[in-house]
């Protein structure tokens, strides 16, 4: 996969750097975030060019989509006082010269070491592909995520879970005053939601042998959830139902892994003949949790802006995802 560079790539790379810099340096943070989102979309194009479609999907859905939504939402919530920043936020003041020099030094060293690397090297291609038959899936990335290095992925879901726990620990936020949900959005919802569910399910299923999988599917479901929230504001606090869904994927994954160990296989060791099914089960469970967690990260614990008293009781008031 080392096609020679085409004009397209050169342009893409330049565009990427320019957008990246704009995303960092624009005085207006709203602009910056929008450019960051566009940057993320271009980045996923890059992934495609580099032969990493799985990463591309994840980047578009999570790196650009979810992260962008979160950033915009935060800016909106903080209002003008929070969104304000200096006119030239990254200007090279004397105090920053040291930083700049250090960064440049690092870049030079990085270039040197990249150039020092061999032009071609084996990597783990051979073993990864040889073992593919025993991994239960035919998409090597999925095989790596859920079999070769499943321990990473289990902990990774733990990280996601922690993020939402952290958000819950913080005080509930006042809900943003939203315009009355217009019928258009409702209609859109009625069309889009089923679609997202179907596509997510497809991504999950296809992940076994083609780009896709729990994270991409989950992210897509989450997008649907966020749309729902925009139409009919939710509050996802640590209510019993929400907790159950949040912990579901992690628990199933861990349980399966430990069960494998108890049955004599060893930690997260799946017998090849059942590996496919096991992975599908884990991914399905994980996708649900990932989706809800991502929505919860966006929605968080909210209290009606009208009722200031509710702060202390939100935790108990929350009634799960259903509005």
């Amino acid at each position, binding site marked *: 996969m080392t096609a020679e560079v085409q004009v397209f790539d050169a342009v893409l790379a330049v565009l990427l750097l320019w957008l990246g810099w704009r995303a960092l340096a624009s005085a207006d943070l709203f602009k910056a975030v929008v450019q960051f989102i566009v940057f993320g979309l271009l980045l996923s194009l890059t992934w495609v060019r580099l032969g990493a479609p799985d990463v591309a999907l994840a980047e578009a859905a999570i790196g650009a989509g979810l992260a962008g939504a979160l950033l915009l939402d935060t800016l909106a919530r903080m209002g003008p006082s929070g969104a304000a920043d200096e006119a030239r936020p990254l200007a090279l003041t004397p105090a920053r010269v040291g930083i700049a020099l250090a960064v440049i030094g690092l870049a030079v060293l990085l270039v*040197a*070491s990249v150039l*020092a*690397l061999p032009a071609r090297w084996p990597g783990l291609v051979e073993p990864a592909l040889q073992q593919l038959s025993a991994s239960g899936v035919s998409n090597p990335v999925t095989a790596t995520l859920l079999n070769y*290095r499943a321990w990473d992925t289990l902990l*990774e879901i733990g990280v996601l879970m922690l993020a939402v726990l952290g958000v819950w620990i913080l005080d509930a936020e006042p809900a943003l005053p939203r315009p009355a949900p217009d019928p258009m959005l409702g209609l859109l919802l009625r069309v889009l939601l089923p679609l997202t569910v179907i596509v997510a399910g497809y991504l999950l299923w296809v992940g076994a042998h083609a780009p896709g999988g729990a994270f991409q599917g989950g992210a897509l479901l989450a997008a649907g959830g966020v749309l729902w929230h925009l139409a009919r504001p939710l509050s996802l606090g*640590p209510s019993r139902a929400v907790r159950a869904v*949040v912990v579901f994927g992690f628990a199933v994954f861990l349980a399966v892994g*430990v069960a494998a160990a108890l049955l004599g296989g060893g930690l997260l060791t799946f017998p090849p003949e059942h590996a496919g099914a096991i992975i599908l089960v884990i991914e399905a469970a994980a996708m649900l949790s990932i989706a809800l967690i991502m929505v919860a990260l966006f929605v968080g614990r909210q209290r009606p802006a009208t009722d200031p008293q509710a702060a202390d009781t939100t*935790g108990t008031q929350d009634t799960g995802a259903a509005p």
Partner: protein
Amino acid sequence: MTGSAALVTVLAVPLAGAAAALLVGRRGAAVVGLLTSALGVVAAFALAAHVFAGGLQRVAVGGWAVPLGMELRADGLATAMLLMTAVIGAGISVYAWRYFGADDHHDRHVHPVGPSGSGSTQWLFWPVWLLAWGALNALYLSGDLFNLYVTLELLGLAAVALVALAGAGAAAAALRYLLFALLGSMLYILGVELLYAAHQTLDLLQLRERLQPGVSVWLAAALMSTGLLVKTAIFPLHVWLPPAHGSAPAPVSAALSALVVKAGFYLLARLWLDLFGSLPGASVAPLLLGALGAGAVLWGGVQALRQTRLKAMIAYSTVAQLGYLMIALPLAGRVTDGAMHAAVLLAASHAAAKASMFMCAGSLLAAYGHDRIDALTGFGTRLPITATAFALAAISLVGLPPTGGFVGKFALVEAAVRADAWWAVAVVLLGSLLAAAFLFHALSRAFVEAPADTASARVARAPQLVALALALLAVALVAAGEPLRHLLAAGAAN
């Protein structure tokens, strides 16, 4: 139970406990937490027994051989850290049970931060704390550079979430902590990918065999070390620690200062004693780390001396104590060396003593409603248990007999003298003088007669007894030298 089974249990127990605690919710979380802690201690000792008897224990995750799969290994050093985490962690759990359990129980005795408005989610401490515990265990046992990155992130986010428990007032401290942690892991992963690209493996042992000196390897080493220094809060990258540890709720401060920061040190030791140690001229880097450690000891000590609030003082003392551990690195050639033995002893004693001391601070805060050192008059008569715990912990931190801190310091100085590293000797001794200065100053408050008007709330006994137990543990570690040496030797990775 076989060695590998024990290893898996050590990993699974806290994670499963976290899931269960989250599932059962406010009512049962504490019970689950205590149960998990008990099981965690048992599992850790079971694994230690296997390492003691059978040496290094390994588990290939998913049954895949490295480099495709990843391997979990329990050598002497990892096991020692596991034991430390389990025992101290259990103590922290018991303390937290009375502390956060407060809004279930009738008396909300020890609450330093006052009504934070997030009282209803305080119980989330349990799943987060258990995840942190699980992350620590996973980190100690992991033999895979990328897996270590994931464990570091898990640990970092958990720690930040725990700090956030202190309410909106601590948001800034938690945020700073998180930004530092993110930067640290980015630098770390950058280094990892350079190593992977050059050697096609992420496994520590395999990497050490394949390691080819070169600019990319050195850059990788520098990046990973810097990232870990940030996470370990080694001077001068320590700035995030005092606010974070100082503003967190008492049990959280205890967990962070006693256990979480040690993870970074552990990885630095692994990197420079196991992985990069074989590089030609690699001995320079540990020297550099040692120099930073010296800076940490002195700077942390002086800052602690300048603090007027107890928790801030204790937090700066952590900065200083981490310096001792760094100083051990250049003195130790390998993980089994005397200096490393000393470092682990110091780490364990510090963990016990510092956890106890933060718990004492919590009780004092509850009793006096503030933690201004000079105004804590007469706590010796008012809170005799806490005063005793504080005194014992202080003695161990200063490094006076008969405590684990003393044995550790003695072993460290001995290693330094054997290595003719007189700078290290001077720094260690100076550091203990500074520690004596600020700790005895705080301690002397206990003997002053309190003015009659100083009002003080009733403070429950149980948390104070936990603090005392941990302080006594710090003392008991005076006898840990020999067993620990055997453990380190028995589990030597090669």
